[in-house]
């Protein structure tokens, strides 16, 4: 049970990881306060539905809203962002000048899209896609223009390209890799999916990078490294995202590429702080000891729940977080599942005809263990492979977690509160302990 009784838990980030963490705290019988600081003005929603539904107009923002059992226990601070963490005083510093005192803290701030040098972001013509507001703006733009250039053919770029094309927009995708989705599904399914996009009328340019931008009035011209020029009415920059952990700088945490956690999701270097979702980098001891991030819905759900458990249980008793990752993408109605670590070795066909997007490929690591798979349109095979990976790479235990050490020296003790953000009032009064009745 609890290492010590927490009475005030603050969750920073109101995405699916933060929401599922709150839900789990309540499920576990935690009866203290829960405060969620959420930069977006909206209630939590299904982010994957932005490309698979909202962009091509099938669903409304309201239909994306996530259900959760919070029993009225959560206080939301929407439209408020954390800008710093004073771990010694146990305060989250907020952009409205207030601070949030905490006894336990859950970091769940997700990611922000990367900008392309030279491309002016967030204009009507050059956009990125992460939030529902981004998606609505892109949808509005797409309805007004004839052509969109998508820079980056990863999961978000390829899904958005399909949605825009299906809506009648002329779409060109430029990607540096030899195929679309190369780093998500590997080369073979990558080839098959690139062909699928081409058959549906998406103009795909692979092995190319945008070197320069020309924002002519009413048009965008991207100059590729090989000199080719691509003109479009608007552009979507989808070249990946970086974890939103800038607010943890100078907090004592290692927040270089995501916030560094130990195997249990406890943030290395801080007490009573856990992290979950896309912003967390942690060692999945089922596979190896190297901290990594996973940008997948199901992992964010699992990690949100696990982080809540870990916070309540304390670092000594918390179990290591060691899921077999399960990710999906849907492209032109073709369901692809990514299991475990599909890119750890070379993928070989194990079922059906993957080149025709009906089958599975799997991979082993250096020790010959089955560690990952990609599956097209074979959900039952996907269930079996997921189980097989779990069996080949067994769950670590508490001893494994205790033996883990961070890879490099972590930054020094928590620094004082960042200057310029002198907080003046708390957003919640610490609950005063009632004087013991005489």
């Amino acid at each position, binding site marked *: 049970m609890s290492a010590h009784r927490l009475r005030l838990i603050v969750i920073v980030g109101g995405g699916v990881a933060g929401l599922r963490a709150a839900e789990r705290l309540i499920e576990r019988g935690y009866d203290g306060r829960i405060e969620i600081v959420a930069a977006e003005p909206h209630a939590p929603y299904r982010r994957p539905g932005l490309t698979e539904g909202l962009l091509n107009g099938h669903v409304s923002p309201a239909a994306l809203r996530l259900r959760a059992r919070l029993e009225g226990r959560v206080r939301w601070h929407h439209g408020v962002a954390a800008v710093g963490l004073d771990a010694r005083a146990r305060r989250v510093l907020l952009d409205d000048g207030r601070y949030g005192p905490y006894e336990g803290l859950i970091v769940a701030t997700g990611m922000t899209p990367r900008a392309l040098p030279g491309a002016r972001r967030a204009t009507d013509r050059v956009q990125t896609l992460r939030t529902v507001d981004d998606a609505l703006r892109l949808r509005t733009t797409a309805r007004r223009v004839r052509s969109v250039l998508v820079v980056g053919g990863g999961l978000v770029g390829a899904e958005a390209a399909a949605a825009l094309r299906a809506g009648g927009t002329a779409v060109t995708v430029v990607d540096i890799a030899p195929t679309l989705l190369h780093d998500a599904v590997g080369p073979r399914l990558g080839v098959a999916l690139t062909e699928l996009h081409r058959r549906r009328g998406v103009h795909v340019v692979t092995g190319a990078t945008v070197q320069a931008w020309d924002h002519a009035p009413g048009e965008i011209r991207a100059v590729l490294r090989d000199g080719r020029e691509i003109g479009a009415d608007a552009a979507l920059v989808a070249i990946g995202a970086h974890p939103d952990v800038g607010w943890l700088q100078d907090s004592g945490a290692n927040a270089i590429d995501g916030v560094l956690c130990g195997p249990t999701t406890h943030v290395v270097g801080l007490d009573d702080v856990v992290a979950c979702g896309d912003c967390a980098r942690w060692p999945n001891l089922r596979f190896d000891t190297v901290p990594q991030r996973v940008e997948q819905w199901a992992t964010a759900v699992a990690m949100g729940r696990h982080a809540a458990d870990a916070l309540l249980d304390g670092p000594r008793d918390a179990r290591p977080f060691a899921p077999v990752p*399960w990710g999906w993408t849907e492209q032109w109605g073709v369901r692809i599942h990514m299991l475990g670590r599909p890119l750890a070795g070379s993928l070989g066909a194990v079922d059906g005809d993957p080149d025709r997007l009906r089958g599975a490929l799997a991979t082993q690591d250096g020790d010959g263990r089955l560690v990952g798979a990609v599956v097209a349109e074979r*959900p039952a095979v996907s269930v079996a492979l997921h189980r097989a990976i779990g069996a080949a790479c067994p769950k670590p235990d508490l001893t494994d977690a205790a033996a883990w050490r961070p890879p490099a020296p972590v930054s020094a003790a928590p620094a004082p509160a960042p200057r310029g953000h002198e907080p003046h009032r708390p957003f919640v009064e610490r609950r005063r302990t009632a004087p013991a009745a005489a």
Partner: protein
Amino acid sequence: MTERVHVDHRRCRRHALCVIVAPDVFARGGDGRMHVTQPANADAAARAREAERYCPLQAIDTERRR
């Protein structure tokens, strides 16, 4: 008070993540749809609720019904 597990077949994309999370409750039927075996005990019910939270299409409903 019992919980009834329900799958909305219009929303469901048959990803079978629910089968991974709660194999004793969800299974793919011969017609390709997800079939539900109502949870036999509290553990199965808890797994069904967990599947509801994972489902990428929010197609599972385990609301408490009287």
